């Protein structure tokens, strides 16, 4: 069909302000935001909270990398005829300003302690407070109802509650850090999490924080599932939903099914640590590997909570900025659900070296299955780009970065899923590089791309394209420099989570550290671009990119109740070949040439 749906253009029954219109004075506005049940405001509050936590986690990461600039050399000396080895700890102690509370202890072991705390802090913040909530809680909250043509999510008050729970949990975690930090790693493996530093409650605090954050994640997921089921606009069937919505839906299912398991695991862990109930303690007949099973039963599916939303964003960016109908819509939707389903069956691949042979073989085979739907997606994205009219703006550049880095991340998962090779690579820098390529190169990159894609809609302001591209290129270079070197380090035998290393690794470690600085500068530039846009950006039109999903039909920024009239869906979200996007000029966004007889796009 070729006419556009104009029922909500023009003749507005009443004039409703943008959701950003302040209500009264500063205090009244703050109060209005703090008590809002508007999904858009909650999404924006999540976005800023998550950016803040990303900053904290990033500082810790820069600290970790700075420490690794030099190996902590081993000094061998001869004392009274005996050979004595000792470490020089100066380098390590440089971390002290970042991780407070331990500097008084002094000496090398304090230095090592600080290092352990810095990477634990980084891992815990980045997983539980940044990546897991990132896309669903911020962009998802803002755009899921808009894309469905709804006025809000199903349970707006629950939504606000989940934001407060998130903030509350994060405060818990940050409090533990301010009190001196923890050194358990983000995985909280026993006995690190149950026996070390028995004198304090910080570990309990952090575990509780993860538990609390799990609640916020469950509430978001639950809200989204019901929203998708009950609040689609008239005319929108399941297969007319934008794929971002499908992604939010699949993610929500995993959140709801997997998070309770980590909830009970963390509770048991607290019981173990505080009351010494013995279930994870081999001295009392318990089993530490049981903890690992519980942990990964949640934490593998949760890596798909991290990546599926990124798939969703890429699914929006690529067709809109290549002005081309998405290739293989249904395959994409089913691949998303397929990944979600298989993700529950592969947790054992984190424990190949700790489990029986038969179990390891089964888990290995199942893990390879995940690669199939993933590859389908990558194939479809590339097919969509083929012969599209690609706009090389920031969102598209981020989508291309994503394709490149996620493919590397996914492919390097395969040697890890292979038993014989994993024996060597397990717990090495190769694993570190693998998961950074998928989590950062995948999720964070797509997230930043998505923020740019939807920024004009969210805030009604354009951003400076040139500087954003500079930031994007720096992030790309910095990221690859930081983490590609780590693949090489890993294959050469550099183990993860060590503060020190043999001298021959120094060159690669230094390259990686330099990469981390470039990465940091890239993100700072993005921050500058965002602030500049909010303060002095030009006003954004309703549909700056010529998108077809419903969020582009309303104003930028959207009005308080999203749409002047309930939208009625008359075309699919990717029908660029047949529909002129709303609020656009055909001169600026021409429809693709009609195909000549016999010609095919793919």
């Amino acid at each position, binding site marked *: 069909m070729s006419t556009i749906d104009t029922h909500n253009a023009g003749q507005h029954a009443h004039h409703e302000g943008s959701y950003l219109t302040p209500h009264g004075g500063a205090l009244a506005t703050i109060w209005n935001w703090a008590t809002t049940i508007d999904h858009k405001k909650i999404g924006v509050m999540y976005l800023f909270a998550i950016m803040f936590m990303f900053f904290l986690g990033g500082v810790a990461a820069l600290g970790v990398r700075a420490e690794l600039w030099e190996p902590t050399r081993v000094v061998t000396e001869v004392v009274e005829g005996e050979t004595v080895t000792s470490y020089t700890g100066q380098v390590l102690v440089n971390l002290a300003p970042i991780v407070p509370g331990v500097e008084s202890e002094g000496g090398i072991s304090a230095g090592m302690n600080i290092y352990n705390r810095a990477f634990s802090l980084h891992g815990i913040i980045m997983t539980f407070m940044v990546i897991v909530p990132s896309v669903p809680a911020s962009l998802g909250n803002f755009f899921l109802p808009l894309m469905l043509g709804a006025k809000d999510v199903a349970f707006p008050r629950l939504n606000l509650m989940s934001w407060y729970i998130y903030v509350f949990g994060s405060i818990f975690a940050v409090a533990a850090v301010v009190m001196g930090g923890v050194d358990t790693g983000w995985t909280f493996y026993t006995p690190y999490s149950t026996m070390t530093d028995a004198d304090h409650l910080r570990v309990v605090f952090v575990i509780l924080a993860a538990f609390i954050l799990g609640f916020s994640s469950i509430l978001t997921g639950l809200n989204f599932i019901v929203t998708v089921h009950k609040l689609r606009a008239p005319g929108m069937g399941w297969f007319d939903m934008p794929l971002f919505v499908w992604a939010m839906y699949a993610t929500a299912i995993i959140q709801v099914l997997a998070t309770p398991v980590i909830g*009970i695991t963390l*509770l*048991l862990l607290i019981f173990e640590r505080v009351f010494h109930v013995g279930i994870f303690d081999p001295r009392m*007949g318990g089993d530490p590997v049981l903890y690992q099973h*519980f942990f990964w039963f949640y934490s593998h599916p949760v890596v798909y909570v991290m990546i599926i939303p990124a798939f969703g964003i890429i699914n929006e960016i690529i067709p809109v900025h290549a002005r081309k109908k998405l290739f293989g819509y249904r395959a994409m939707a089913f691949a998303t659900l397929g990944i979600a389903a298989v993700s529950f069956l592969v947790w054992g691949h984190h424990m190949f070296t700790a489990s029986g042979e038969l179990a390891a073989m089964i888990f290995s085979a199942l893990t390879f299955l995940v690669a199939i739907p993933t590859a389908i997606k990558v194939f479809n994205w590339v097919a969509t780009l083929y012969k599209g009219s690609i706009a090389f703006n920031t969102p598209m550049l981020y989508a291309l970065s994503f394709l490149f880095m996620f493919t590397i991340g996914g492919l390097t998962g395969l040697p890890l899923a292979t038993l014989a090779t994993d024996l060597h690579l397990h717990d090495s820098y190769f694993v570190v590089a693998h998961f950074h390529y998928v989590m950062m190169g995948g999720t964070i990159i797509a997230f930043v791309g998505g923020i740019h894609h939807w920024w004009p809609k969210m805030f009604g302001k354009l951003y400076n394209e040139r500087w954003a591209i500079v930031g994007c290129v720096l992030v790309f270079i910095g990221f690859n420099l930081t983490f590609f070197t780590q693949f090489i380090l890993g294959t050469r035998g550099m183990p993860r989570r060590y503060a020190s290393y043999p001298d021959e690794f120094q060159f690669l470690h230094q390259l990686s550290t330099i990469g981390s600085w470039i990465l940091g500068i890239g993100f700072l530039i993005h921050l500058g671009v965002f602030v500049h846009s909010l303060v002095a950006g030009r006003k954004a039109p309703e549909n700056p990119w010529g998108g077809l999903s419903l969020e582009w039909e309303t104003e930028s920024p959207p009005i308080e109740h999203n749409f002047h009239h309930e939208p009625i869906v008359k075309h699919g979200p990717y029908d660029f070949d*047949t529909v002129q996007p709303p609020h656009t000029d055909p001169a600026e966004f021409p429809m693709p040439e009609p195909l000549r007889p016999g010609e095919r796009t793919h």
Partner: protein
Amino acid sequence: MTSIETGGNPPQHNQQPPALSTEPRWKRQPFANHWRSHAEDFDACKIGMWLFLTTEVLLFAGIFVAYAVFRMWYPEAFANGSHHLDVHWGALNTVILLISSFTVAASIRNAQLNQQGLLKINLSITLVCALLFMIIKFTFEYAPKWAEGKRPGVWFSYPFAADPNEHIWWSLYYTATGIHALHVLIGAGVLFVVLLKSFKGWYGPKHYTGIEVAGLYWHLVDVIWIFLFPLLYLIH
């Protein structure tokens, strides 16, 4: 993708029921403005609650898995430990919870039929049952066992244990029943709020979302106990 033409509902705003202040509270209760009708709002709340119950089941699934693993490893410890539980108290508590499940279901029916008096009575009986359950649990089960040294983990000091791993059994016993008891308290708290609201006339025919979802939650608390009871009290 194919394009879709619907009959095209005219763009509509909520048709909220008229609010006359003389009518009972439940008739004046508006639905949130992002829904099209009360029925939609009600359905959504019910789906939401079912999803939440799923998460609760999965939470307990973790405990059941731990139970299965350790029972497989230490069958003797579990059999011995279970012998120290008093089946009579366990059975009584089971009956009490079953009764409360019945009364809460009845109270939903009362709301549907606008039987405001019975509604309050049934809710109150449910709350009394919850209280009884907790009293029995604490005074007749936890307290004497704790006094005898049948405690979890390192706290275990019962001198006549027949199996060296019996503390693991007690760890799981206290964890499972403790977390369940916490759920009883939460459920009772929610039902108490429902009871207070029922005094203000919040519930009536077609307007009983609150009771319905609270009742669903209460049934879950009951069902979990139905699983815990045989697993803990009836093994040999």
